[in-house]
C-alpha cells in the first residue's frame, strides 16, 4: 500500500465517517456523468460559466437552494461549508446540524458535508447533475475533500496560501502546505479515472487594496504547487479591483504568465482557466446600488474574458443572503452576459509590461530562495516578506507593503516593504500617486479607497 493510501485510510477512519468504501467511490468517479465535471464544461461551453455562493445546514434547505439556482439557469452550483467543519470540529457541527433539523432554524453558516456524509450528499449532487464547486476555507481539508469527491463534487477551491493568509491569525503555514499537498495528490489521482478534477485558487485574498502583482504571484504559486502533484485542470482567479483597465490588464497578464510558468515546469498540458469574482470588498448597504455594482462586475468580467464568474448578492452588506436574492443575481448575470455584445479588445501595453516585470521579479526571488522544495521556498518568501498581502490578519505576513488608489482608481504600491518590486516599476507606481500629502491625508485616502463602492 502506498504511503498516500495509508494516510488516506487513517484520515477516513474518523468516528464521524461511516465506513468509507474506497473501491465503490473509485467506481463512482469512473462512471460519473461528464456533466458533473466543470473541467468538461470549460472545454465545451462557449460562454462564461456563472456560479453563486451558498450553503445551508440541512439537506432539505440545500436542496431547495439548488432548485432556486436551477430555475435561475445556473451553470455551476456552490457548496459552502460551515465554519465548525472548517476547523475540523465535527462534534459541534453534528450537534448544530441536529438542532437545525429539529428546530427549523439555521444553527450553522454552511453545509456540514462530513456529517451528512458522501452517500447522502451524492444523491443531491447527481440529482441536479450540474458541476458543484466546494467552497470552504479549511487549512486541513483532507477529510473534507475525500468526502466531497466521493459525493460527486469535482471542483475544489482553496490553497495553502489563499485559504490561510486572509482567513487565519496564526494557523501554522507549513502544516497548511503539507495538508494541501495531500489534497492535490488525491485530486490528481482521481483525475485519471474520468475527466480531471478541477482545482481553483482563491484570488480575492483580503479583497482590500491587494495589488495585482501580489495576487498574480500567489495564483501562479498555488497553480505550480498543484500541477507539480499531477493536477491537470486548474483555475486562477482574482476579484474586481476598482479600475476597469487594471482588471483587464490583470486578466491578460495572469493568463499569459500562467501558461508560461506551467510550461516551465513541464505541465503545459494542464488546462488553465480564469475565474473572476464580482466585487469582494466593502459593499453598499443600499440594495439597488449593490445590484448596479454586481451588474458592472459582470460587464468587466466580460471585458476581462473570464471563463467563470462568481457572484455576490444585493444583501452582501447586510448578512447571509436569502435564496431568492441569490438566485436573482444568477438570473440577472446570465441575462447580462447574453445581451452584452460587441466587446472591444482592450490592450494597455505599458501597464501590462510593468505588471509582468513585477510578477516575474517576485517569482524569481521566490525561486531563488535556498530551500529544496517549492513549498518551502514559498513558505520562506512569505516569512521574509518577499510576498506581502495587504490587510492579511496572519501573524506571519509582513504587513509592510502600503497601497493606495490613483486617479483612475488603480491600486498602486507606495511602499513596497520587502517585496522585490523592480526600481523602474516602483517609480512608475509612485509616479501615479500624489505622495506630497501628509500621513493623515494618506490614511484618509486609504479609508476612502477601501470604501469606493459604498
Amino acid at each position: 500500500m502506498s504511503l498516500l493510501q495509508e494516510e488516506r485510510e487513517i484520515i477516513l477512519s474518523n468516528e464521524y465517517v461511516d465506513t468509507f468504501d474506497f473501491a465503490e467511490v473509485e467506481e463512482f468517479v469512473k462512471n460519473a456523468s461528464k456533466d458533473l465535471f466543470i473541467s468538461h464544461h470549460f472545454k465545451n461551453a462557449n460562454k462564461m460559466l456563472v456560479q453563486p455562493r451558498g450553503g445551508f445546514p440541512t439537506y432539505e434547505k440545500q436542496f431547495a437552494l439548488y432548485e432556486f439556482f436551477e430555475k435561475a439557469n445556473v451553470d455551476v452550483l456552490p457548496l459552502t461549508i460551515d465554519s465548525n467543519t472548517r476547523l475540523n470540529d465535527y462534534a459541534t457541527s453534528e450537534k448544530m446540524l441536529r438542532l437545525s433539523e429539529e428546530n427549523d432554524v439555521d444553527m450553522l453558516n454552511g453545509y456540514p458535508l462530513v456529517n451528512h456524509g458522501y452517500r447522502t450528499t451524492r444523491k443531491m449532487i447527481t440529482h441536479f447533475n450540474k458541476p458543484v464547486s466546494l467552497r470552504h476555507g479549511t487549512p486541513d481539508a483532507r477529510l473534507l475533500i475525500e468526502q466531497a469527491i466521493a459525493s460527486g463534487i469535482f471542483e475544489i477551491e482553496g490553497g495553502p496560501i489563499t485559504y490561510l493568509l486572509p482567513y487565519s491569525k496564526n494557523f501554522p503555514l507549513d502544516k497548511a502546505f503539507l495538508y494541501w499537498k495531500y489534497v492535490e495528490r488525491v485530486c490528481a489521482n482521481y483525475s485519471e479515472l474520468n475527466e480531471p478534477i478541477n482545482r481553483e485558487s482563491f484570488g480575492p485574498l483580503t479583497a482590500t487594496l491587494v495589488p495585482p502583482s501580489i495576487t498574480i504571484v500567489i495564483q501562479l504559486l498555488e497553480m505550480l504547487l498543484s500541477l507539480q502533484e499531477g493536477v491537470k485542470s486548474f483555475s486562477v482567479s482574482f476579484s474586481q479591483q476598482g479600475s476597469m483597465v487594471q482588471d483587464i490588464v490583470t486578466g491578460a497578464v495572469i493568463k499569459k504568465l500562467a501558461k508560461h510558468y506551467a510550461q516551465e515546469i513541464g505541465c503545459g498540458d494542464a488546462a488553465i482557466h480564469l475565474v473572476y469574482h464580482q466585487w469582494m470588498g466593502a459593499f453598499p448597504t443600499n440594495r439597488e446600488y449593490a445590484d448596479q455594482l454586481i451588474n458592472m462586475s459582470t460587464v468587466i468580467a466580460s471585458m476581462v474574458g473570464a471563463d467563470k464568474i462568481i457572484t455576490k448578492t444585493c444583501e452582501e452588506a447586510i448578512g447571509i443572503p436569502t435564496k431568492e436574492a441569490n438566485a436573482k443575481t444568477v438570473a440577472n448575470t446570465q441575462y447580462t452576459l447574453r445581451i452584452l455584445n460587441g466587446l472591444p479588445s482592450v490592450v494597455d501595453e505599458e501597464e501590462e509590461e510593468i505588471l509582468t516585470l513585477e510578477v516575474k521579479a517576485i517569482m524569481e526571488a521566490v525561486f531563488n530562495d535556498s530551500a529544496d522544495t517549492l513549498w518551502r521556498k514559498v513558505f520562506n518568501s512569505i516569512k521574509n516578506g518577499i510576498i506581502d498581502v495587504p490587510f492579511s490578519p496572519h501573524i506571519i505576513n509582513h504587513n509592510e507593503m502600503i497601497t493606495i488608489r490613483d486617479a483612475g482608481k488603480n491600486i498602486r504600491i507606495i511602499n513596497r516593504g520587502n517585496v522585490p518590486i523592480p526600481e523602474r516599476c516602483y517609480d512608475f507606481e509612485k509616479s501615479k500617486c500624489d505622495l506630497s500629502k501628509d500621513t493623515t491625508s494618506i490614511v484618509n485616502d486609504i479609508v476612502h479607497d477601501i470604501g469606493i463602492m459604498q
Partner: protein
Amino acid sequence: MKVVTGVVGNDIHVVANRLIDLSLQARGFEVFNLGVNTYLEEFFDAAVETGAEVLLISSLNGEAEGWGREVKLLKARYKNLDELIMMIGGNLTVGSGNAEDIVPKYKGYGFDLVCHQVDLNTGLDQLEEFIAQRKTQ
C-alpha cells in the same frame, strides 16, 4: 501616549483594525496592535505590560456583546488599570441595532467611549477630546 488595540473574539475582519493602527500612529500615539482574534485577557495583559493609557477594542461581527459583561469583573482582577481609558467601536451588535440602546449598555460594561457604527476619524477625534479633558481636570 500608548494605546493597545485589537479585534475581540473569533473575528478575523482586519481591515478596520489596520486603519485604526495607521490613524493612531498618524495622530502621534504609540500603538500596540494585538490584531484580530484577540481575547479579553490578552487585552488587559497587554495594557499592564505596556503601561498603556488607552485600550481601544474593535468588534465587527457584533461578538463584543458576548464579551461585554465580563469586562468589569476581569478588569477588577488587575491592579493599576483604574486610570485606563476604555474605548470600543465597530459594529457592536449581531444583526442591526441602534445607538440609543447600545451606548448606555456598553457604558455600563465599563467603557468610557462607545462608538457604534461611528466613522473612525470621528471616533478618534472624540478620543483626543476625552484625553484633553482628563488632562485639564
